[in-house]
């Protein structure tokens, strides 16, 4: 059996959708035509899912339709911001299940857009306990982990001239001749400024706007070494046009698959864990069907199939051992051999600071010139 990690390459939603920047059109449209994009009128025996594109195994969906007699009606978005804007408008009515990332759970819940999840209806015991009860949603009141990924670094040890263990190593390596000008940084403010905040012993979720700005100064000075802030194409790292890159484990695995001399690391002292979650919309018209679907999704064999389909690990405990033995670079799927979940932190969007992160990120990208 061959494993189809189709999303870990160019098709990874975090790279390609980031590249496209198609979100504004969707948001503008939904703002201009409230109601026109509404999911079909809900009744019993229906399920309306609002999710990232191609984020459910088609095999699982067919099996669920056969089992329950209900074909989930899936509508897609391409950013958490679009999801938020849609649910926060009249056009958001009619959805049952949404898939927000860890960073947006709090904002969605605070706005009263999600309903509390009844844990008695679901079996969370089979899930990886490291992924439950995390800072972004204590007690998993509103969210059940679907799949997850990391912020790390993929690099060419030869070009970089050594190992990278911390974010300090990352910044130092980027300044070296031969590496400078071949560096890729994330286009998300917290993923570029976060590493410097962690080096300074600060938490990216509690840092004040002034602290964020101060940490951003290092990145602005570093910007001249950066080649790209756009979504990372694994081929660019594999062929050497980029030798040091911030990226997620899925893209890194695709690059290493193309060029085995590359390395992947989740640098210290901290790095990011992002989790995409199942959540139930506040006024979901088909709540029972939603629980039925979630219970189905959390079954081990379904989780395994989801992992193989989307290329990022589902939340099932002991998933690594259950994957086929011939799966290549299996460690990187799970972030590396000795991943310590205590050294991972999830970003939570906060209205007080998000503007600062984005403003400083824009300044960093501008400082990189063009």
């Amino acid at each position, binding site marked *: 059996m061959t494993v189809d990690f189709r999303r870990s390459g160019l098709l990874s939603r975090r790279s390609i959708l980031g590249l496209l920047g198609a979100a504004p059109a969707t948001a503008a449209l939904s703002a201009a035509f409230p109601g026109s994009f509404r999911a079909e009128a809900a009744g019993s025996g229906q399920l309306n899912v609002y999710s990232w594109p191609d984020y459910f195994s088609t095999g699982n969906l067919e099996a669920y339709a056969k089992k329950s007699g209900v074909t989930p009606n899936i509508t897609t978005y391409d950013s958490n911001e679009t999801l*938020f804007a849609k649910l926060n408008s009249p056009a958001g009515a009619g959805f049952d299940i949404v898939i927000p990332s860890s960073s947006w759970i709090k904002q969605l819940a605070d706005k009263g857009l999600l309903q509390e999840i009844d844990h008695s209806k679901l079996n969370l015991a089979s899930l990886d306990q490291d992924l439950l009860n995390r800072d972004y949603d204590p007690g998993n009141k509103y969210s059940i982990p679907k799949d997850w990924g990391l912020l790390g670094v993929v690099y060419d040890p030869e070009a970089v001239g050594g190992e990278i263990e911390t974010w300090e190593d990352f910044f130092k390596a980027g300044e070296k001749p031969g590496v400078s000008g071949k560096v890729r940084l994330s286009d998300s403010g917290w993923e570029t400024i976060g590493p410097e905040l962690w080096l300074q012993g600060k938490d990216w979720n509690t840092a004040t706007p002034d602290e964020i700005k101060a940490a951003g100064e290092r990145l602005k000075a570093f910007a001249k070494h950066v080649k790209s802030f756009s979504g990372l194409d694994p081929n660019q790292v594999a062929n050497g*046009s980029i030798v040091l890159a911030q990226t997620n484990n899925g893209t890194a695995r695709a690059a290493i698959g193309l060029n085995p001399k590359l390395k992947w690391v989740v640098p210290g002292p901290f790095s990011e864990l992002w989790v995409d979650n199942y959540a139930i919309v506040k006024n979901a018209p088909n709540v029972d069907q939603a629980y039925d679907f979630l219970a189905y999704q959390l079954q081990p064999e379904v989780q395994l199939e989801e992992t193989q389909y989307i290329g990022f690990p589902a939340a099932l405990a002991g998933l690594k051992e259950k994957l086929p033995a011939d799966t290549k670079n299996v460690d990187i799927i799970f972030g590396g051999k000795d991943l310590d979940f205590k050294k991972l932190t999830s970003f939570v969007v906060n209205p007080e600071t998000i503007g600062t992160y984005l403003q400083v990120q824009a300044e960093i990208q501008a400082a990189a010139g*063009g």
Partner: protein
Amino acid sequence: MVAVETIVGSRSSGGASAGAVAPRTADHLIASIPTLWLAIFFLTPLAFTVIFSFGRSTFGGVELGFTLDNYATALSGFYGATFVRTVIFAASASALCLAAAYPVAYFIARHTTRRRTLAILLILIPYFSSFLIRVMALHMLMSRGGASEIVLNALHLHAGPLDILDTQTAVFIGMVYAYLPIAIVPLFVVLDRIPRPLIEASRDLGASPFKTFLFVTLPLSRPGIATAVLLTAVPMLGEMVIPKLLGGSRGVLMGQAIASQYLQSQNYPLGSAMAVLVLIAVAVIVLALARLTKGFDEVTA
């Protein structure tokens, strides 16, 4: 819109119908439908944008009011510089596009006879595919180990790997490529409408081909130039896909900044204020160029 007008105009107005005809009631009726459509679906959202731009942001919402703070922010320091950079970017990309389009349009208008429909068609056909796909295709062509690298190496014009992707050069190549057809069409239309006798007269009176071009063809093609600049510079002001895909998102432009305010920061008022400023810039360009486009009527000598 202007391009459509000019194309239609060039086909239907065989000289005789160029004069003004008094509009009839039926015409008014037909015109009222698109006008109403625009009023509802274009002016209303625009009005919201303007109203929002004077409000205060509540993450994902707007508290209506009257404050000029958003405009102060949008014009100050970083965003002011971004605004200026965007205008310079659009102006230079548009100028490059014009420089590339003029010779092509000139050639088609002057040196093709039966094949001109084919020529125009060949220029327009790629335009029917998605903008994104065309830019992604360029991305592949320009990447390391891509077709451009192989060809340049084979021709000994370049040695070794080609690192053009994620540079300003790649962005400008992409901009010219993507906007070329909409620059060529209005130029072709206007060049095609310059009466041959005028050129012949100039030659007969002893002007060199160069002088004829400089003092007859070029001034008469002014409206086409204005339209081409208008049709390329205006969308270029809001361009964000090409800098992202081909330029590595370095050097932030206004389109990106506005999208980021609306979506990521959920700061509608600031995003709106920035959008209104871009709109004003566009209006200024349009007004300036509209004077030149008026020349269309005068061409039919």
